[in-house]
């Protein structure tokens, strides 16, 4: 099971000091957070993609390429890559390049993006978000698997005799997750391809999340990729910790009350009751996260949102220390206990390469026999 963090990349005023970081500070902070994630033993760092203030990550492969050069082990991912308004040809090129530079430590999470004006800024219509996500991804899927592509569709100019370069590392495309919080079409899409499905459940009650994940698991089996319980599921989470849970609540409350996404809405107490947000001791975070498995089955990737709402970098780094030292080691042990042997880990480059070599070997054996 993989544990990691995902960052929205928001530039938000710290409500306790009134100080707003500069874009430069925020971008450098994201790098420092990613390096810290590797240092404390996490498996994944994922960045959002936004094309409007107050967010800084408009160019994810630039950021991830820089982080790749400064890390050794951590998987670099996105949360999410806009499969709607980005040209799939450019996604194919950018992420294949990143994959080579990072020696395979790359995957992506596709998302549609819910910022209305971004669609017209890139020449598209938000009402066509689903068909665009379907068509664009279908093209991306082919570009990474077929050396020469002839293609014609609805949302992009046709391609004749087109080869996306560089070709994926070792001929193995980056693993893809599809992120959606409410669209059955996207769960169906993920299931069709046998890709991963990520539900960013941080704003949703478990009953809703469960409906979408069950749909994905059922359809994954329907399309012949394996049993429902072998489908590749990822979940979000959101935590703030101190050794003493009262200290955590006291320190986090002003950030919660003023956060752009939930300020003025439910109280911290209501929000922690109805959604996965956990504010308390590391043990409370462990207990809460373990309930996800009870609700959604054994899963493959758990990403936490740690750096948002104006939390200062120093605090975020302290949070990552707690996550890496006190929470994740226990979660690894607990999640491994009772996990059926046939439930796979999330595919990474090395495992996909090994699987292909094993497959080649099997074929050789058959030919010789």
């Amino acid at each position, binding site marked *: 099971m993989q544990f990691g963090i995902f960052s929205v990349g928001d530039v938000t005023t710290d409500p306790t000091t009134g100080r707003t970081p500069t874009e430069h500070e925020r971008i450098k902070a994201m790098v420092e957070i990613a390096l810290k994630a590797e240092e404390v033993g996490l498996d994944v760092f994922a960045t959002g993609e936004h094309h409007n203030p107050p967010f800084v990550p408009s160019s994810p492969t630039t950021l991830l390429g820089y982080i790749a050069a400064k890390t050794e082990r951590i998987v670099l991912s996105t949360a999410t890559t806009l499969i709607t308004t980005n040209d799939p040809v450019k996604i194919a090129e950018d992420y294949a390049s990143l994959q080579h530079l990072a020696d395979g430590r790359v995957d992506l999470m596709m998302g549609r993006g819910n910022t209305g004006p971004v669609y017209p800024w890139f020449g598209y219509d938000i009402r066509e978000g*689903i*068909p665009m996500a*379907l*068509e664009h991804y*279908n*093209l991306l899927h082919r570009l990474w698997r077929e050396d020469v592509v002839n*293609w*014609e*569709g*609805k*949302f*992009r100019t046709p391609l004749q005799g087109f080869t996306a370069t560089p070709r994926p590392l070792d001929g193995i495309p980056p693993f893809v997750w599809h992120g959606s919080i409410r669209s*059955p*079409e996207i*769960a*169906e*899409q993920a*299931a*069709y391809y046998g890709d991963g499905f990520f539900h960013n459940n941080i*704003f*949703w*009650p478990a*009953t809703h999340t469960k*409906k*979408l994940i*069950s*749909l994905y698991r059922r*359809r994954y089996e329907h*399309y012949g990729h394996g049993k429902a319980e072998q489908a590749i599921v990822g979940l979000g989470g959101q935590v703030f910790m101190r050794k003493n849970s009262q200290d955590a609540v006291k320190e986090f409350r002003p950030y919660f009350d003023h956060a752009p*996404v*939930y*300020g*003025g*809405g*439910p109280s911290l107490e*209501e*929000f922690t009751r*109805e*959604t996965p947000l956990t504010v308390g001791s590391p043990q409370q975070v462990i207990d809460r996260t373990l309930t996800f498995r009870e609700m959604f089955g054994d899963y493959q990737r758990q990403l936490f949102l740690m750096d948002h709402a104006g939390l200062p970098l120093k605090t975020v780094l302290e949070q990552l220390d707690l996550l890496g030292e006190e929470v994740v080691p226990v979660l690894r042990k607990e999640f491994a206990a009772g996990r059926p042997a046939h439930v796979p880990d999330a595919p990474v480059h090395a495992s996909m390469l090994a699987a292909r070599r094993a497959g080649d070997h099997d074929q050789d054996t058959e030919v010789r026999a």
Partner: protein
Amino acid sequence: MSVRRIVTVSAGLSTPSSSRLLADRLTAATERSLGDRGIRARVRTVELRDLAHDVMNAMVTQVPTGELPGVLSDLAEADGVIAVTPVFNASYSGLFKSFFDVVDQGALDAVPVLVGATGGSPRHSLVLEHALRPLFSYSRALVVPTGVYAASEDWGADDEGARELNERIERAGRQLALLAADHERSGRDPYDEPVAFEDLMSGLGT
């Protein structure tokens, strides 16, 4: 005996409110008329005041809190809806509008809706036609022809005035019952029965 699910929504703020009084009478008229057809009504009456904080939570964060998710799922399964609001500043109340703003798009598609409103004077009665009816037309609901408006003075009217309001209530309830009796939810839950991938891709480049 077959059953139809009726959800009655009242946006009145006082206890008791005249919106709730009107809502209860519209509900009773609908139940009677369904009963005449051999149909039992299963009614859920919702006071929006009790949901006010949850409606605002849903509006600013999209997180459904408290009783709201249960009410929304009942509404999504209703065979008929009775919606009554007080008139505030020449229109439905903000709470009434906010509630219907957080109802899922499509939840009222082809659902019979009976609209009612209450106000201090009869001069606002056209609020039914210029505010409520367009709101539910936008939701693709089937708004029954008779809407019912009750002014303060109606609650103390003489026999003649009371009879007029009563007749209107009975007629509206009959119209809602007529449509609710024939109402069938499509029954297809997109999370249980998704559109298959090849149908999703129809007309798109592959």
